[in-house]
């Protein structure tokens, strides 16, 4: 007992500070402590103005993403013992604006996520009495790993292309696009295809692969994007000979749905 570990925490209050600054805290070191525990000790005992985001403490909500010694990590899944006795530097996620202290504003990612329509799209709504859509284990295996995404944004903090040009739709959103495109129950690929084919879609990725390395849920966005590149290239070839799938809009879907119901 009695060991202490140094936390170097980035602080930024947009109402007071011109730019972010680093502040150092000494917290008691216990073998079981996560980075998030260290932050909570700091807030409870040393500086209650420290602001950070967290919820579940079990790597499922995706709220506590930070840069830990420059690497995007979940605070609850990263342990101080892996750094002790060296100091640990904690900063907000890279490539996003800072809201306050360790809270980054990931709303740009959320907009990208909305744009790829991350939900099952059916041309016409089934009725409850038809029962659930069944799926074979093979059909499930095709998209399952991509469905593990918890929208934590670590992959955006890792992606150098997103850092250079934030018009890029980015790793998690494109991995989720692939997840729905490869789901046998989904019929919405034609609505997502324009995003996939765009420069800001899969084609801004240069397959650095750091997104897949930092993902706390072992999703492999780099693989998803590069599989989508193959689909997009096939679609490009079909487009050249005038046989490409016609991109659809949400209005088209409603028209089809009404036609079938009516």
């Amino acid at each position, binding site marked *: 007992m009695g060991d202490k570990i140094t936390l170097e925490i980035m602080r930024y209050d947009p109402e007071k500070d011109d730019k972010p600054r680093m502040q150092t805290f000494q917290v008691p070191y216990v073998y079981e402590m996560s980075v998030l525990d260290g932050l909570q000790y700091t807030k409870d005992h040393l500086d209650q103005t420290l602001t950070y985001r967290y919820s579940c403490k079990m790597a499922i909500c995706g709220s506590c993403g930070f840069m830990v010694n420059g690497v995007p990590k979940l605070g609850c899944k990263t342990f101080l013992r892996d750094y002790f006795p060296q100091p640990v530097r904690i900063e907000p996620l890279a490539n996003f604006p800072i809201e306050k202290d360790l809270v980054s504003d990931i709303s740009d990612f959320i907009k990208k996520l909305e744009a790829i329509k991350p939900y099952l799209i059916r041309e016409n709504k089934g009725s409850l009495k038809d029962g659930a859509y069944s799926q074979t284990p093979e059909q499930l295996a095709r998209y399952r790993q991509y469905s593990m995404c918890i929208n934590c944004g670590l992959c955006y903090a890792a992606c150098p292309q997103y850092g250079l040009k934030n018009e890029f739709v980015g790793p998690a959103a494109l991995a989720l696009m692939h997840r729905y495109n490869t789901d046998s129950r989904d019929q919405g690929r034609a609505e997502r295809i324009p995003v996939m084919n*765009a420069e800001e879609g899969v084609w801004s990725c240069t397959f650095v692969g750091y997104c897949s390395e930092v993902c706390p849920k072992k999703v492999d966005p780099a693989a998803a994007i590069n599989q989508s590149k193959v689909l997009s290239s096939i679609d490009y070839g079909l487009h050249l000979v005038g046989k490409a799938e016609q991109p659809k809009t949400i209005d088209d879907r409603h028209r089809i749905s009404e036609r079938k119901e009516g």
Partner: protein
Amino acid sequence: MKSSHQVKTLQDKQWNRSNEPIWWSLFGAGGVVVALILPAVILITGILIPLGLVDPHFMSYVRMQGFASHWLGGLIVFAVIVLPTWHAAHRIYHLSHDLMLKPHQLYFILCYGLAFVITIAAGTLLLVV
């Protein structure tokens, strides 16, 4: 850092089809040649023949000319020269983007232009051998 607050929603955004599949397909084909065939070419022409471990006669001028002037041999030589060139051009062009070198168009023309010139040159030379 651009603030994401500037973008309200992407719902009305126009997504334009990229021409990248052309360059990426050539890059991919070149990658296969670089990974699978080029090491063998380097081993034979760069190590085994110069060290005399293989009878130099196997790569004599006459035999090589015969190989390159046959349509299939010519096609193989063409692919081995041209595809890795497009592969390299694509990689270097994207490196120029990573290094934030500007203007992009200049590097685009330099990289893919050189690959195009090499393609035409290789094709022409193979047709006359």
